[in-house]
């Protein structure tokens, strides 16, 4: 074949290869921004407070966000496929109440966790059924079930509290699951890890593998980018969405069990307002509310940033609501700044 004559294009459309990645593309990746934020948070807090970089303090700090973080993993997948579940905190309450009654009936720790997860499963299936069978927008459905689930908790429990739990169950929530182990070398040791944080880490790895390394994960991205095209490609859109609501319910039930074990008591207002905290974690983690974009790594990083910011500020006696100003501003800033830069940048004419 003569190399000098150019080959005329055969197709009507020319599909170019993706341009090679440049340094800027890598640096502007969401995860990189979050890593920088995380490092900045750790550096600033270490300078400000000598108590920040203490293994036990850090381990205790994870108690405060691990339960929410577990739910955030499921919420990330839901938001990825353009859905949302605002009823998670109400499921936490309903599951916690079921656990309270089960504990009074003499269930052991395994039975109590199973009760919580089972109730969550039923609630999630109810959400999923309404969203997929009746084809309703999930934001409205889950606002409704949020009221319904917490309402049922209030009706059954009234102003009572459940405070009787077996000691082994409470130990699971209140002590370190992995104990501190020192070795001869000062910097080499097994850190203390609470059960809730351990579960979060294990689930994060699991969710990450499913989302980024399996066909189902790719299908979720496809649904999020274009549900109609996904359906026409033979992806069982409704089945997957139903499943995600069930997973979200189960993880909420699990979080309810962990929270009950940690607090050692529950009232009907347990976990009020969590849904918005969890959505904040997911969005800060770079999952696009428009669907189809996001990574589990981003969500994990966002969870750590939020957790450490809150912990660091509470070390310095800053009230929780002032922390929320910082977190709200952070949420808006990380989304607004790239857009502002995009507008300001003068692009060369092609």
């Amino acid at each position: 074949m003569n190399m000098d004559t150019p080959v005329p294009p055969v197709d009507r459309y020319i599909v170019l290869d993706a341009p090679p990645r440049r340094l800027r593309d890598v640096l502007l990746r969401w995860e990189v921004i979050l890593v920088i934020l995380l490092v900045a948070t750790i550096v600033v807090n270490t300078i400000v407070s000598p108590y920040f970089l203490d293994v036990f303090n850090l381990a205790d700090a994870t108690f405060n966000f691990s339960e929410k973080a577990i739910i955030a993993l499921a919420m990330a997948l839901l938001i990825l496929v353009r859905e949302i579940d605002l009823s998670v905190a109400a499921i936490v309450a309903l599951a916690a109440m079921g656990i309270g009654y089960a504990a009074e009936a003499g269930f052991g720790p395994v039975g109590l966790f199973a009760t919580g997860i089972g109730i969550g499963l039923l609630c999630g299936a109810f959400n999923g059924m309404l969203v997929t069978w009746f084809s309703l927008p999930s934001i409205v459905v889950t606002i409704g079930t949020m009221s319904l689930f917490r309402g049922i908790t209030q009706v059954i429990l009234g102003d009572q509290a459940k405070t009787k739990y077996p000691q082994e169950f409470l130990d699971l929530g209140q002590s370190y699951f992995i104990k501190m182990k020192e070795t001869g070398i000062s910097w080499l040791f097994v850190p203390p890890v609470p059960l809730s944080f351990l579960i979060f880490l294990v689930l994060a790895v699991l969710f990450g593998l499913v989302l980024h390394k399996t066909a189902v994960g790719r299908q979720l991205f496809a649904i999020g980018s274009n549900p109609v095209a996904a359906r026409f490609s033979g992806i069982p859109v409704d089945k997957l969405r139903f499943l995600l609501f069930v997973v979200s319910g189960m993880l909420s039930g699990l979080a309810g069990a962990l929270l009950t074990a940690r607090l050692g008591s529950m009232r009907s207002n347990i976990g009020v307002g969590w849904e918005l905290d969890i959505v904040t974690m997911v969005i800060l983690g770079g999952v696009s509310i428009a669907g189809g974009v996001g990574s589990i790594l981003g969500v994990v990083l966002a969870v750590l940033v939020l957790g450490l910011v809150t912990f660091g500020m509470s070390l310095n006696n800053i009230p929780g609501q002032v922390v929320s100003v910082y977190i709200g501003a952070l949420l808006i800033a990380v989304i607004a700044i790239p857009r502002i830069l995009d507008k300001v940048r003068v692009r060369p004419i092609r």
Partner: protein
Amino acid sequence: MKGLFNYRELILASILLVGIAAIGAYQPAFLRWGNISDMLTETSVLFMMALAQMVVILTRGIDLSVAANLALSGMLAALVSQYYPEIPLVLMILTGVVCGLILGLFNGLLIAFLGIPPIVMTLGTLAIFRGLIIIIAGGDQVNASEMGAAFQAFPKQIFLGLASPVWIAIAVSLLFWIFLNYTRAGRGLYAVGGNPVAARYCGIDQRRQELLAYVISGAVAGLCGYLWVARYGVAYSEIASGYELTVIAACVIGGVSIGGGVGSVAGTLLGALFLGIVMTALPVLQISPFWQMAISGAVILAAVVINARAERRPDKLILPEARRLRRV
């Protein structure tokens, strides 16, 4: 009158009437004018907040920051009343409205001109506004004894059998009705939400419409902030906590479509009235107030299921569920 009520709203109105009649038959005290007037006063804030939320939802947006805005504006109005008791009441109310309007403007500017998703933006400002209350009030609350007398007296004044918040709600509802049905900007809100592309071709500026919606939402939240704080005689950071979801629920019950472009003043008012009746009827019926949330939840779910059935069109497609997916 044909434009005022559609079929759906007639059904909702008749359900409400039957419900009220049934409660009245069981407990005649419920139908006494005093009780009805109290119920309207209690619901007046929800009427206005739901209308403002509807305007935002019409443009395919959502404003989760309204309750936090209400609390912050109410706190500011209360602080003005506490530290400058000599200025006229109108200015105090105006403080609340202007504060709310500025907060709404902030939401609107970033949503309309930077394209930040409304749910993300207002989730962020929800946290910021709540936190700002602690900061501007120094962590304190403003009690009834610290607010001015006129400041607190106004929402309790009765004209022609109805308290002033009800009259304000009536006036605001009328304004909304005229605005949404007879002005270019009001119709533009429906156009932008119903079909943004067609609206663009008609020369409607989507960004200006969105900005307008959030400014309206903010200003109404500011007004309601004053009414709330003055009526209950206390301002602190947690007032109306979680109220944003009640407001959205009222819209949903009233037939506002979360997908944008669908909703009416009458329907939204009926939706708010429904929740108002549920809240006030329970004590009259001697049902534990703990039932309130469960009932609202069930009603919201019933309403969305019915709405979805009403919106379904009987056309055929290769894959019937694909059309719905597109609407998400």
